[in-house]
């Protein structure tokens, strides 16, 4: 293709857009708004997943040891189990200290024997299979009970997993839907102009000659929609970020930089690529003249 011809296509595309002003506007705004939906979902879901990841960091199992058992070999054995990240020994004295502190009383066991067991605190890998691990622990000698927070840990792990699965399902569905809307919107603008395509063919234009300006129009609509939606989304996330940091600083929100960076790629790809695909695919039917 000659440079001159490409220039011509670009000119054609921009003329086409401006002379179909109302249609172009409708298409750009629809694309922008669809991308905003995608972006909103993306922000919510990536943050949920991030939140869940963070939550994994606090998961723990407690193992109570029988009296007078040497913790070292047990600690070493447990460290090897699948799904275990770290094993920490907490002696009965440390346990009493912790209990005193958290109950707000002093000298809890000065007049009596310390009845607390020695403990191993196990920090879990998020990919752990808790049931299997508990079985393994139970089968060890010297262990009295695997107890504290078992159901809580199990529940947390499942919730985290569900958030991940649902999040990815949802973003995929919404992504496809948004794609479809974009392609369809551009399709509607092309449908309205099928007569032009017929005329062009009758005058001797090749398919590519007709397709290029339409494709560039589609890309341009995609680009405009992308820019508008990115501006609104980054602004929106900026406000949201500030709001949450202010209202609930303990919630782990993804930094603006990370979100904007990922969102930029997602939205740009979806918007621009499918603007082009939408128009190209739409005129196909009308080229058979």
């Amino acid at each position, binding site marked *: 293709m*000659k440079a*001159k*011809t490409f220039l*011509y296509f670009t000119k054609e595309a921009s*003329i*086409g857009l401006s*002379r*179909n002003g109302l249609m172009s506007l409708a298409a750009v705004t629809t694309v922008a708004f669809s991308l905003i939906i995608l972006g909103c979902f993306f922000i919510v879901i990536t943050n949920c997943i991030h939140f869940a990841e963070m939550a994994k960091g606090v998961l723990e199992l407690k193992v109570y040891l029988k009296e007078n058992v040497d913790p070292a070999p047990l600690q070493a054995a447990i460290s090897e189990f699948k799904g275990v990240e770290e094993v920490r020994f907490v002696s009965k004295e440390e346990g009493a200290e912790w209990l005193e502190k958290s109950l707000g009383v002093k000298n809890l066991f000065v007049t009596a024997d310390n009845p607390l067991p020695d403990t191993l605190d196990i920090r879990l890998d998020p990919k752990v299979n808790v049931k299997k691990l508990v079985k393994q622990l139970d089968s060890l000698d010297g262990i009295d009970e695997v107890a504290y927070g078992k159901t809580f840990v199990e529940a947390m792990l499942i919730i985290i997993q569900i958030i991940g699965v649902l999040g990815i399902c949802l973003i995929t569905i919404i992504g496809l839907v948004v794609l479809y809307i974009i392609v369809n919107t551009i399709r509607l603008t092309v449908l309205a102009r099928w007569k*032009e395509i*017929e*005329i*062009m*063919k*009758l*005058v*001797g*234009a*090749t*398919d590519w*000659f007709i397709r290029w300006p339409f494709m560039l129009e589609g890309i341009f609509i995609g680009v405009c929609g992308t820019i508008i939606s990115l501006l609104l989304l980054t602004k929106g996330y900026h406000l949201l970020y500030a709001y949450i940091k202010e209202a609930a600083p303990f919630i782990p929100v993804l930094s603006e930089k990370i979100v904007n960076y990922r969102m930029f790629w997602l939205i740009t790809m979806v918007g621009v690529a499918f603007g082009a695909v939408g128009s190209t695919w739409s005129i196909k039917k009308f080229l058979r*003249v």
Partner: protein
Amino acid sequence: MIQFQRVSKTYSNKTIALTGIDLFIEKGEFVFLVGPSGAGKTTFIKLVIRRELPTEGQVLIGRKNLSLMKNHEIPIFRRNIGVIFQDYKLLPNKTVFENVAFALEVIEASRKDVLKQVPAVLELVGLKDKAKVFPTELSGGEQQRVSLARAIVNRPLLLLADEPTGNLDPDTSWGIMDLLMEINKRGTTIVMATHNKNIVDRMRRRVVALENGQIVRDEQKGVYDI
């Protein structure tokens, strides 16, 4: 140049537009296609530019059998044919200038050629002043002349004119006919479907008369009526 071999055309809604047409038009001829409304003149033209395919028989243009033509050959083929459509078929989003220029753009003519030839041909059809105007802002006759300008701007080997004077006054019509004869003299084959008795009768060229999709008359130096 144009050869129809037992050509029939039935549209998808079962309308029989042409039946058993046998016709040979030589290079450089000027042929009038006449016949009552609905006789099949436009269908004939559509077959020549491969807008429709015959349901029976063969259409040969030059040495090409249109039924066997491959998809990618069609645009190239059409570029050698100028057509004045009965309903003009102008691009509504392009100005008069751009509409005419389009026939040059598709053959990737140079900018210089476009800027030279388009104004020249607009001058010929008397629409110099209307270059920057959109088709919807033109009168019926003006639109018809834009269609003519587009058809002749790239000097086609074959010119098909479907009722090119239907919306023109007699004076302008004669101007257009002079133009067509000029083009014909330079070697372009012309097929013109028309209802204009005055023109046909005065020009005395070959007349092919259609009726109900059949050729009922084919005379050299003919007239409109029998």
